[in-house]
């Protein structure tokens, strides 16, 4: 029943001598990377949300489904998350000095007009998440973390709380409100500042990466890992949403328009 190799593994588990970590090679200098995610089809129209709680307040805001936000003018896809992918053995790069002043900053995440603002919050493990409720109705903010302890505090109207997340999360973590079930947000927690989320035009930029070879990973809430893009008419597969880049000192690598197929986005 138990194969030989697993028995061997069980033995290894008992007495493994671990090998030292490979050094992380970093060239001198700093460079940036930018690009834009573009919907390769007619922009979908976001459906209205059936507001069934606190109608008199939340019903005023013409709430829309924001799980896929495509700009009707330039087809840019908002809320695509791009971050530095590090293997188990890789130590995170020492951040560029420009990131020092935000290392222990507060990152705002607000319950605002019965939706989360921003939809995607980017947080470093050294920073503090400030969860606020700007509304006149009560909310609760349920964050189902994996590496950190999950939380689900009530945020009374007009108040806020501060929360730390000391471990990085491998995947963006869903944030929800139990009182208003349509409310969805995402929290990204990393131990380095090299992440970005696309704006309303689909554009992202990660500034001042150490020069050298890096792997980035791309994720969106409806597609999961963005596994394929089209660039200059040519389709490229990104396994697990990962692609490699070379950052050169003093330069900004512009990836241009990255076309994403409507087929990538589905209910998951």
């Amino acid at each position, binding site marked *: 029943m*138990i194969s030989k190799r697993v028995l061997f593994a*069980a033995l290894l588990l008992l007495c*493994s001598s671990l090998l030292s970590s490979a050094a992380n090679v970093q060239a001198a200098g700093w460079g940036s990377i930018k690009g834009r995610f573009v919907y390769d089809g007619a922009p979908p129209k976001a459906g209205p949300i059936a507001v069934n709680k606190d109608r008199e307040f939340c019903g005023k805001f013409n709430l829309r489904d924001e799980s896929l936000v495509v700009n009707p003018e330039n087809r840019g896809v908002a809320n695509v998350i791009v971050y530095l992918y590090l293997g188990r053995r890789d130590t995170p790069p020492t951040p560029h000095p420009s990131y020092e002043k935000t290392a222990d900053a507060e990152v705002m995440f607000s319950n605002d007009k019965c939706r989360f603002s921003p939809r995607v919050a980017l947080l470093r493990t050294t920073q503090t998440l400030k969860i606020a409720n700007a509304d006149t109705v009560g909310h609760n903010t349920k964050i189902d973390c994996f590496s950190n302890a999950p939380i689900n*505090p009530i945020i009374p109207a007009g108040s806020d709380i501060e929360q730390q997340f000391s471990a990085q999360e491998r995947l963006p973590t869903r944030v929800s409100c139990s009182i208003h*079930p349509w409310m969805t947000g995402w929290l990204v927690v990393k131990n380095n500042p090299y992440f970005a989320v696309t704006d309303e035009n689909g554009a992202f930029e990660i500034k001042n990466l150490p020069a050298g070879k890096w792997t980035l990973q791309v994720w969106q809430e409806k597609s999961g890992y963005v596994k394929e893009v089209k660039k200059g008419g040519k389709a490229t597969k990104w396994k697990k949403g990962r692609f490699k880049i070379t950052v050169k000192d003093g330069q900004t690598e512009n990836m241009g328009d990255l076309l994403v197929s409507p087929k990538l986005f589905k209910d998951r």
Partner: protein
Amino acid sequence: MGRAWAAAVGVCLLLQAGCNSPEAAFHFNAVYAHKQSGVTKSQAKNVKEILIAQFGTPDEPAIPALPDMDVSSVISLDRLKMSAGPVERTDDTAPRRGLYREHCAHCHGVTGDGRGPTARFLNPYPRDYRRGTSKFKSTPVGGRPTHADLKRILVDGIPGTAMPSFKLLAADELESLIQYVKYLAIRGEVERSYILEIDAELEEEDLLLNVPGEDAEQVADQVEVIQDITSMVLSRWANAAGQATEVPSHPVDDDKLASITRGRELFFGTTANCVKCHGDTALGDGQTTDYDEWTKEIDPTKPHLAAEYVALGAFTPRNIRPRNLRQGVYRGGRRPVDIYWRIKNGIEGTPMPAAPATLRSDDIWHLVDYVRSLPYEALSEGRTKGREFQRERN
């Protein structure tokens, strides 16, 4: 004659099946693997094999070995043995075995996945231990239940559900079952973490643990991943005892009515906001469309997706209901301290949030007093009288 013949054949077949019935095995968490869509068949087999090497089988349990942790301080193999294995009652002098299968498996399943043969007929469904999540405990959200928390549930049962009390079991039997439930929960959590690791890190053709001899460095890396995950899960259980939320004493106050009145104000106010889910009349009808975390795993709001999971063995999703506070039935225990913990910490795995920090312990005690007074209000005891009690439903 023909009938008797058929019956005889049937009995033979049954006997044969009995003699050759396969050894009990833990089921793979196919539902979670389906959610993390990137797990191949050979990777699933790989996970099963690693789990057998670490945790053994339902008949022969094992506890994982870790280089820098004494696992027996969390689960002891000696204790597990009384609960593991098939039910054996042949000899009164022999050590008892099979307690879990005798008392628990018909609802919670041999794997602890909450899918025993009777499970689908119950409402609520029996607990699936494999997330490591417990609702009724003294620790905050994210903390594992303490040993005492689990014991309380075994001894008292869970009122309002099919979970009975096991007060009549001997002390060593209870102890063994508590440890066995922890063992199944830890095994289940480790399994989930492996599935997540594979989905996030591995290419389709790679395994969590490769054939040895191919690349010693790679295998050492993989062993480290397995050890890290196992030790992370185990340490959560090891730390639980120190995490129990302290309960300051009740504000001694002769005027109980004043405390109830204050609790009522908080219940309907926007700080505690209980009314939003438990409803204007506390019948638990304020928010009836949500689901618990076990159910959310299968995308209950999208029927075509939920069907995929049901085909893999998940049960038909049901909404979670906020508790009807007028019945006086408290699943996590009826002592004031139990209700204090529920309000202070929230209920993990459910939409019930934790009280905001601005609510002081006295406020929480006022809420406890109000909640405990609700079953005795006139409204709780009879039919509604008329318009006066009509409320908005969603």
